[in-house]
Structure formats: C-alpha cells, structure tokens
C-alpha cells in the first residue's frame, strides 16, 4: 500500500510539491490525524503571505507535530523536546531577514517547553509559533498532556485526568504575544489567513490549531474516526474575535471559541535593543565615558565614611 502510494505520488505532480519534501512521502501520521490539514493550511498560508521560501525557516520540537519540519522543503530544524522556541529565537536574532516559524505540539510547547514559550512572548521576539493541540501525547502512546481536559482518559490517567489543563491562547496572550488566534482543523480557510497574517506580522505570533487525534485521544475517550471528530469540531466551534482569550478554556464538551483574539503592534525585542543602543550612544561620545558615567555614584555631602583600615 505504502509503495503504491509513493509510486502514484512520484508519477503525478503534487500541487504543494514546491514546499513539500516529496522524497519523504508517505508521512508517518495516522489516518484521520489533523496534521495533514495543519501542514496544508501552513503551505497555503505561506503562499498567500508571499514570503520568500528561501528566507523561511521552520523549527520543530519532538512528537507527532515535531515531524512537520522534516516534511517541509524549507530550511528545517528538528530539535530537542521543548526547545524549538529558544533555538528559533537564536536563528531569528542571528539572521533578522529570516521568517521563522516554530511548528510543534501542545506537550512540546506547553509542558516541557512552557517556560520558553512565555518568555519568548514576553520578549516579543519576531517569531511565529504554531501549536497543534490534540489534547494528548500521540507519539509516545497517549499519555496525559498539559492540555488534556479534566476527567478525560489517557494512558497515564486511567481514572480520568485530575489536573486542570492550560488554556493555550490565554497563556500566550497574558504573556504578551502580539498576535493570538485559535482555529480547529475544520477552519482551513480562516486558519490559512491567520498563518499568512502571522508570517507578515512583526513580533511574537501564536496560533493554536485544535486538531483531532483519532488513534489515541478519541479511542480512549469519545471514540470515532478523524472525520467524526472534525464534525464534532464543526458543531462545537463558534467564532468570536472579541472573546477574552483568558476566558475561553477548552473542555471535553464546551464551545470551542475560535478567532483572532489579539492583533497588536508592540515593539519587538530587536527594536528595543536598537532603541537602547541609540539612546546610550547619543548620551556618551566614547566607551570610557559611558562606563565611568554609568558607575558614577553621587553621595550626600554630609555623609561620613569610616573604614576599618583607618581605625
């Protein structure tokens, strides 16, 4: 079957082959997985954004979504678990001409890598983070994630999950991201637009993609195929751009509030660096002066100093 598929793919040209590594197909993802839609919308989003593919880099962590970097024909980096964001930060700051995307999963970005995400958002580094949220650890066989809804079953929560999950968009917005959006894989067109917006927007952009995992999450919980889950997303999802991102957590059966919740312009890390240097250079004419001025301490005249050596 796999060989047959590969043969067909090789014989016929694929509409996305300028951005996909066709020599790596077929991919490893399960049937019914939302990652196919996520990658398709990403490719469409990049085309729409009009960015140079040669100047676009993609960084992934570890996990099912961590494999995305390997399938995209861009400068692609498959790094360690949770560390895609600091790696991407280094890449972007060292070459500011690049458009840098981080493409990873909820466990990678919010459990092991959670600290990096909030700090990158706080710094407002000019990178774009796409988080595919399937509510579970897929690659390792269905263990509990920081997004697993309260009461949901996983292979490490056989009595139902007893931890409150993170609300990803709320956390990103509260940490200072310039752009925050949430869509499901059923919102292909709107998600494509969001990715195009993020590609051209400066500052830290965060997009959550709520994605079906039929193989482990659904099997341990509501059951059903990938298509069933997509239909469920369609019935549960509402679009409300004005929603407060901190007030729209996800659970097993509530509304999935989607939309572009934050779209602001605030100075990026690099703009602040440049501003700081400029201020300092205007004030002092040379390095010695800058050092001595920064260390000059003014004391009150009447203050008396004693030293143990003098006594």
């Amino acid at each position: 079957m796999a060989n047959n598929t590969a043969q067909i793919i090789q014989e016929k040209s694929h509409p996305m082959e300028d951005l996909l590594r066709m020599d790596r197909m077929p991919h490893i993802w399960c049937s019914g997985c939302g990652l196919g839609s996520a990658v398709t919308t990403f490719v469409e989003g990049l085309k729409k954004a009009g960015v140079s593919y040669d100047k676009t880099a993609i960084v992934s962590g570890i996990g099912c979504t961590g494999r995305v970097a390997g399938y995209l024909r861009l400068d692609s980096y498959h790094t360690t678990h949770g560390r895609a964001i600091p790696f991407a930060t280094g890449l972007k700051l060292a070459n500011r001409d690049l458009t840098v995307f981080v493409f990873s999963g909820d466990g990678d970005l919010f459990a092991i890598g959670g600290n990096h995400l909030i700090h990158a958002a706080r710094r407002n580094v000019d990178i774009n983070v796409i988080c595919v949220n399937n509510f579970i650890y897929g690659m390792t066989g269905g263990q509990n994630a920081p997004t697993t809804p309260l009461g949901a079953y996983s292979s490490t929560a056989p009595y139902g999950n007893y931890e409150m999950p993170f609300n990803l968009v709320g956390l990103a917005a509260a940490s200072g991201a310039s752009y925050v959006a949430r869509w499901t894989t059923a919102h292909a067109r709107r998600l494509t637009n969001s990715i195009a917006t993020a590609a051209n927007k400066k500052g830290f952009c965060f997009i959550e993609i709520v994605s079906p995992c039929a193989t482990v999450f659904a099997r341990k919980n509501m059951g059903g195929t990938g298509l069933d889950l997509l239909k469920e997303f369609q019935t549960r999802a509402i679009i409300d751009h004005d929603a407060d991102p901190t007030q729209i957590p996800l659970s097993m059966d509530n509304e999935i509030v989607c939309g572009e919740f934050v779209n602001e312009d605030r100075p990026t890390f690099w703009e602040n660096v440049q501003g700081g240097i400029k201020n300092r250079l205007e004030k002092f004419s040379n390095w010695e002066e800058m050092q001595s001025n920064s260390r000059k301490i003014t004391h009150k005249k009447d203050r008396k100093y004693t030293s143990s050596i003098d006594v």
Partner: protein
Amino acid sequence: MFQKSRLHGEFFMQGDIACAEGALAAGCRFFGGYPITPASEIAERMAMRLPLLRGVFIQYEDEIASMAGILGASWAGMKSMTATSGPGISLMNENIGLGMMMEAPCVVVNVQRGSPSTGLPTTWGQSDMMQARWGSHGDYGSISLVPNSPQEFFDLTITAFNFSEKYRLPVFLMADALVGHMTEKVVIPKVEELEIINRKYTNKTPKDYLAYDYDESLIPDFAKAGDGYRYHTTGLTHDRRGYPDMTVECQEELVPRLVNKIKNNINDISLTEEYDIERADVIVISYGITSRTILPAITMAKKKGIKVGYLRLKTVWPFPDEKIRKLSEKVAGFVVPEMNLGQISLEVERCAHNNSLVKLVPHPGGGIHKFEDVLHAIEEVVHGK
C-alpha cells in the same frame, strides 16, 4: 562609533573578561546565556560589547534555552557562545548532544566550581572534567580546552572557536573560578595578527547540496539558513541528506564518523606544554590552575635531585593516549594532581596500562594542593611505592 570597539594592547584584565574579549576577537557575534557565578562576568562583558560590534546578546530564561539558542544562531551563520558553570552545564547537556549530532559549531565555556549540585559557587574545582567528555548521552567525539591564566583564557577561547569551526561541533572551554576571577596581564594582539579559522561553506548549488555529505576529512560542508539550500537537520539518526533514517546501516555510518572526525585529528587538536620529560624518572601531569599551584613541588623535587618532568594538558579531550602510553614505557611513574577526587588520573592509568605507577593527588576543590603532598607523591613514585 566608539573607538575601542576592537581592543588590542596590554591590559590588566580579569580571566572572564579576557575570555569574552577572546571570543570577540575570534569573531563571535552571538552570546546567549544565563547568570551564574563564577561565569556571569563573561555575559556582562558580552552584553556591553556585542551591541557595539553589531552582534547579538540575549539573556535567556535558563541554560537549556541558552544552549538551544546558540545552536540556532550557529545555523544562521554566526559564531556563537554561551558561558556557565557546573549546574548550567548539567542543564545544557541535552542540547550539547543535539549540537554534536547536528554538527553545529559553537563554544561552551564552563567556569568550574567545586563539588556536585550547588557546591562552591564562589570558589573553584576541576570536577567537571569527565562531565565534559561524557555529559550528554550517546557516543560522540568532543574537544575540551583548559586554560591556566587569563592570558591563556583569551588565547584558548580563540582556539576553541577555531576548532569548533574546523571540526563542526560544540567545543568546551574548561576554566575554573580561580582562572575566571584572577586578574593578570593580558596581551591582546591586533585582529590581523590572529589566526582565525572559519567554517567551510559549501560551494555546491542548492540542487546538488547534501547537508551531511562528507569527504575523507569526515566533516560536511556548511550551508546556513536563508541561503536557499532548504536542507533538513535533525537530532535523529540521519542520512547524508539530513533525513531521519533509523536503520543500523545509517547508525553505523553516522555515529562512528562523529567520533572519528575528532580521533583522526588528535595531533592537530592535542595541545600540551612540556618540560624535561625526555630524561625524567617521574612526570607530573596537570592541567588548568593546578598546573600553576603545584610548581613549587616540582622545584623542591628537583632540588632533592629527582629527575622530574612536567606535562601540562591544554587539550584534555581528546586525551593524548598515544603520548602517555609512550612515556609510560620510559618513566617510573606519573603524578597527577587535580582538583577532583580522580578523573583525568583514570585516563592516565588507562594509558600507562601497568607499565608504570600512577599516583593521584586529589583535592576536592575550594582551596589549592599542599605542595608537600605533591612532593610526597613524587618521592613515592621514584621509590616505586
């Protein structure tokens, strides 16, 4: 712009500052780090200096991020560095392994303190030497340089960058708090007087380029992000294209290459300083600050008529196996004073291989060896005890 953006001349300079200046002279333009005693001065100096040289300084949220960040910067084509101490290295080790696997040139400075865990933050030790070799999981070749003075901290920082660029891997600079916080005369030559090696960029077209294709040097040519090569890199076992390939054949090709690219070049990498070893009965092998604190013991031994030689390792990893093996056939034994409870002495024992005695003079760190102890060990070896 500020006139003193590039320094040269004679300075009364702290070791950590000399390290930062060495990095700048070598062309380092990206520093990612996290504050930690006794390495913070390196970050502070870089924070002051890099922006004036159009470089990037970023204080990350932890050492894990710092290490990941300098790898990212390295792929963007910048020479990058981080500096920390033992606890920070423990956090960095996973991504140091990623750097070894991805073959990303960068420099990791460890200004060592003593003992496990938080230990002695403000004083020194040499107890991370084995960690530098085996800290990250899996097999890989690694390079560790050990300076014993602020001047050498400056010089070896440049050498560390040269090795990292030449052999494409993270290189360790294993200083200690005593060298890092010591202030001495440091001579900084003009940039044009320094030997600076830059990584070899590919001259192939993107169509013909394979990210991990190599020749007999075993070192792949580099292509940086944004140049249109659009290659893949991964921490997974990968083929010459950089694509994941978890077959035994691929593993058998990749991992031995990571070890052999260093092993085959040991003569180039191994830097030592030696005195009187040709006619010696006993050789003192030391490295880092210990090589200076035990000098009185050698002088005293010579006064007593003992034929004592002195071998200082500036490169500890890769270990100069062959050199020690040959020496072990000629001498009565080796004395290895080090500021740990026996790490490099184990390597010397391995190489001496029962040909001669090996005597460790341990010190747990935080102070310096009593030279009487070293002298005693020298005498014991001469008398065959």
